């Protein structure tokens, strides 16, 4: 009887051991890159840079696409934890909805380094490396007020309303612009960071407000969409468009005088820093700053030569 018990005990231990596929000391450590979406080139750059840097540092790296779905993101976390990944470089889908996933990894002693987007918790992630969107949009706000000479009508096109970056950008912008009563916001609407939606949104706003002077957009894709709508309406020459991101097509548009300004973000810096932090974690470091802001630089026709490769 005792032998049968011993047999089942050994069998159970072996089964439990097999469930957690931890790499041995000789195998390279594994890093999971879990990204909100690979449907947007900006996040593709973020994810691929993080994975490339992790590989360059000698680790195995795998990219998981959450497709902007927190349930899918939760599955990726489960997989990453049970497959023995040693660290997660993470671009959250939802500032609140993603906290549970990060906490799950923390409970399993898997460090999580957030990139670009934050989770609304200071106790879950090991560190959060984030674009300083608020400060970047203060700089954009100042430039906006100067270019409009403190008066005029404008439209604000917001990104995803559930994303903290949307509000950090909007609040930074308004922290300057709202001091000038001559500047009137005639419409504020979301276009989900999407170029086509921004075009449709502005087309409809222009019907009720044909006399606007400027459009402030929460990202560059929406700025391009807004410009298209203005161009189609024959207003592109006298309505100033402002974006945020530093995307190549907007940099070219600034050079050509189509877009007025943008905030240059550095996704590669954030991704590489996250991978380096994972390495430091493996080497024993534990006291990481909870939030690391990455500077956003104002790009205008006056300094475009610094940023445009063409």
């Amino acid at each position, binding site marked *: 009887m005792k032998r049968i018990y011993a047999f089942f005990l050994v069998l159970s231990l072996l089964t439990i051991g097999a469930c957690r596929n931890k790499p041995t000391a000789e195998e390279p450590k594994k890093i999971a890159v879990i990204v909100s979406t690979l449907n947007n080139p900006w996040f593709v750059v973020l994810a691929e840079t993080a994975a490339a840097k992790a590989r360059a540092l000698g680790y195995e790296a795998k990219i998981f696409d959450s497709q902007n779905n927190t349930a899918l993101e939760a599955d990726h976390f489960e997989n990453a934890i049970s497959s023995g990944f040693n660290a997660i470089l993470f671009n959250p889908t939802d500032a609140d909805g993603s906290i549970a996933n990060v906490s799950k990894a923390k409970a399993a002693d898997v460090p999580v380094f957030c990139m670009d987007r934050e989770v609304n918790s200071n106790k879950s992630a090991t560190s959060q490396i984030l674009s300083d969107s*608020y*400060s970047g949009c203060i700089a954009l706000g*100042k430039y906006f007020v*100067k270019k409009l000479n403190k008066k005029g009508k404008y439209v604000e096109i917001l990104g995803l309303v559930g994303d903290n970056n949307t509000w950090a950008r909007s609040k930074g912008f308004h922290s300057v612009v709202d001091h000038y009563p001559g500047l009137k916001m005639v419409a504020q609407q979301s276009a989900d960071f999407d170029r086509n939606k921004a075009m449709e949104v502005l087309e409809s706003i222009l019907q009720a407000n044909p006399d606007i002077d400027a459009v402030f957009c929460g990202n560059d894709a929406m700025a391009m969409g807004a410009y298209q709508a203005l161009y189609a309406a024959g207003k592109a020459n006298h309505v100033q468009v402002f974006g945020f991101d530093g995307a190549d097509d907007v940099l070219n548009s600034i050079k050509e005088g189509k877009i007025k300004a943008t905030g240059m973000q550095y996704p590669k810096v954030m991704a590489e820093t996250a991978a380096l932090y994972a390495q430091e974690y493996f080497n024993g470091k534990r006291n990481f700053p909870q939030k*690391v802001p990455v*500077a*956003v630089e104002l790009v205008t026709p006056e300094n475009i030569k*610094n940023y445009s490769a063409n």
Partner: protein
Amino acid sequence: MKKFLKYLLALIAFLFIGYHSVYFKKLTEVSARTSTEKINISQYTRTFWNKKLLPSLNKALSLNELIALLKTDPEKAFSTYGKALGIGDLKYFMVKGVGKVMKVNENEVALLSTATTENLVVNIATEYVYGNAVRDASGLINTNDFDNTSDFNEISAGINQIIRDEVLPDFKKRIASGDRIEFVGAIELNKKFLNLSDIEITPVQLKILK
């Protein structure tokens, strides 16, 4: 009898634990507490201004010294004196100097910085006082001391409000071309794309010498 005592003790224990497990608060109290926390941010800003920032200004670097070092050894200038709370090429410096007012514009005062071997024109911002230049150049605040980013940003907004309300109004009223002024303030420089021809100073202290 023993059974009765057992039940009595269990009941007392149940009531004791139950009473201490649940508590009720009026929504107005919670909302008042939130307001108090907000007030604390503004109190923090005022205390920071009076007790930390102003006493630290005597350590500000001479603008002319900084410019000279930026021209000869920019790497050293940025690593020794540049301050930033995060990663990137934007660095902040707290500088002081003396200069002669060349022109009083709507949004800034153009100043010829004196006591230098070459003429250097800088602008003192008198209208667009926004952003983190002063907070970050001071090097006195750590982002990790704050639980949320918006509180941290409010510190900057508070500092800028003090400058707009208390430093600038009298200065703007009295300043004229030809005046000599003494200043202490913050500047932002881009390490990668250094541009010394367009320096803007966010003022913390301004004194008209006449």
